[in-house]
């Protein structure tokens, strides 16, 4: 792809990046950081391409190291973000759980 097209895409991506997170609430700063972190793990694609072209064993070794690191970034990033977000409950769902806990507390007071 020619330089000008790449530049165009880059500039547009900058604006999309700014736009997409400009209104994020501080509630989700940690998951957002972690999610963005996972996305740059896509360097895995680059690492695979380089490893797939490697003829020299040393080059292959370094490229495979890059593949391992990038995979850790990508897989770990998405898993940990999912775990975090799994914990964000809405009021309704927890209301029932809370009611259950209240009953237990009541029994304990009765003793």
């Amino acid at each position, binding site marked *: 792809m020619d330089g000008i097209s790449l530049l165009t895409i880059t500039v547009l991506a900058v604006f999309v990046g700014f736009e997409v997170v400009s209104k994020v609430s501080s509630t*989700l700063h*940690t998951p957002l950081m972690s999610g963005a*972190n996972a996305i740059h793990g896509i360097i895995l694609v680059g690492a695979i391409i380089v490893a797939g072209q490697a003829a020299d064993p040393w080059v292959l070794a370094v490229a495979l190291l890059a593949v391992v690191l990038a995979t850790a970034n990508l897989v770990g990033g998405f898993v940990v973000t999912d*775990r975090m977000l799994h914990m964000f409950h809405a009021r309704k769902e927890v*209301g029932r759980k809370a009611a259950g806990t209240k009953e237990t507390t009541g029994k304990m007071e009765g003793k």
Partner: protein
Amino acid sequence: MILDPVWTSLLYLAAAVCFILALRGLNSPRTARRGNLIGALGALIAVVAVFLSSRLENVPWILGAIAVGSAVAAPVARRVKMTQMPQLVALFNGVGGGAAALVALLELSHAQDPWVRLAIVFTLLVGAVSFAGSGVTFAKLQELMTTRPVVFPGLPAVMTAVLLAAVAAGVAVILTGSPALAVLLLVLGLVAGILLVLPVGGADVPIVISLLNAFTGLAVAASGLVLGNVLLVVAGTLVGASGTILTRAMAAAMGRSVAGILFGAFRGGSTAGSTAVSERPVRSSTAEDVAVLLGYAQRVIIVPGYGLAVAQGQHTAAELALALEARGIDVDFAIHPVAGRMPGHMNVLLAEANVPYEALKEMGEINPEFKTADVALVVGANDVVNPAAKTSSGSPIYGMPILEVADARQVVFLKRSMRPGFAGIENELLYEPQTSLLFGDAKDSLAQVLGAVKTL
């Protein structure tokens, strides 16, 4: 099987769209989890596309490396404690930066064009800075080293020398394409990354994670330019841009400039006039007194801070809130944007403790409501409720938005000691007549108060 290049491009486009949707989904708690899964789907599409689209050698090796990376990262990500989240994010960020730098290093032998070599130099340097900086960040957060700023005489001079050497090496790499010089550049980048993060204090480290996250994004984007891969350019740029915005938003929430944080000094300069008042009397309280105050209130606002996260008292805080709600008391959590060990971290910790996200009120939303609160219970927070941020223009935290706990009828601080907060300044609120203090570890104090509330 080799895919037609048009199909590859379309698959990459689909992956890029998935990443944009993922970031957008993360804007709201309702759509966040789905957004993240869409992002993971995008990554899967991209990885499948690269295997199908080019004639790759060494495929078994590559698959093995992917298996190793997943086998290491997934269990760690699944098991890590939520309080240790910030250092794990730092670690994953660092390895991503390292991978980008290695990719650039290996591509140097194929690059003749000076512009491509420039992109390689950029990726090498920024990737290495991100890798080493994240490593130091991890060590600080994991408390493998001191969390205090590490400064030594001549640090700025050394940093300047390293950066000048890096620029010189970079120019030499562009002109000669020498792999040895590229390795030298990599090493200089590592040193620069370490020097960049060493002087940053523990409480500011999270903002540095966000900044390094943006750095890795930019390194990935530059490596996309090197490889001529549009997906890497788009994904890297997205992360670079969003990371920059996020870093600025967090710094603003702390009333600091990013440059100020990196140079380890408060914007206002010295921490003048802080020690003169420490002998003044305060109203010290017992767990039973606090329990009575809370138990007979109508509206309680809990303000959790860094101290609660360090003491890992979030579950006890959530139990206390439930016990109070069982008595018909209206309880909310007021979350300062930088409460916890990472911006937004407190929300995650309380979510883990099953507090519904609607009970977690953001600063702008909760501030007008302190007027209607009978008790504001401040647990392990100090600077984020210090009125000096509004009233004393000479204060180092002047200009930082705070939670207006002073408006509540009663204020109770659960504090470890009278030691000032991270900013090292006295909190006038501690000496006000409506304020009482309960000294001790945040988790222990909460447990005592909880026990006392249950016997009311």
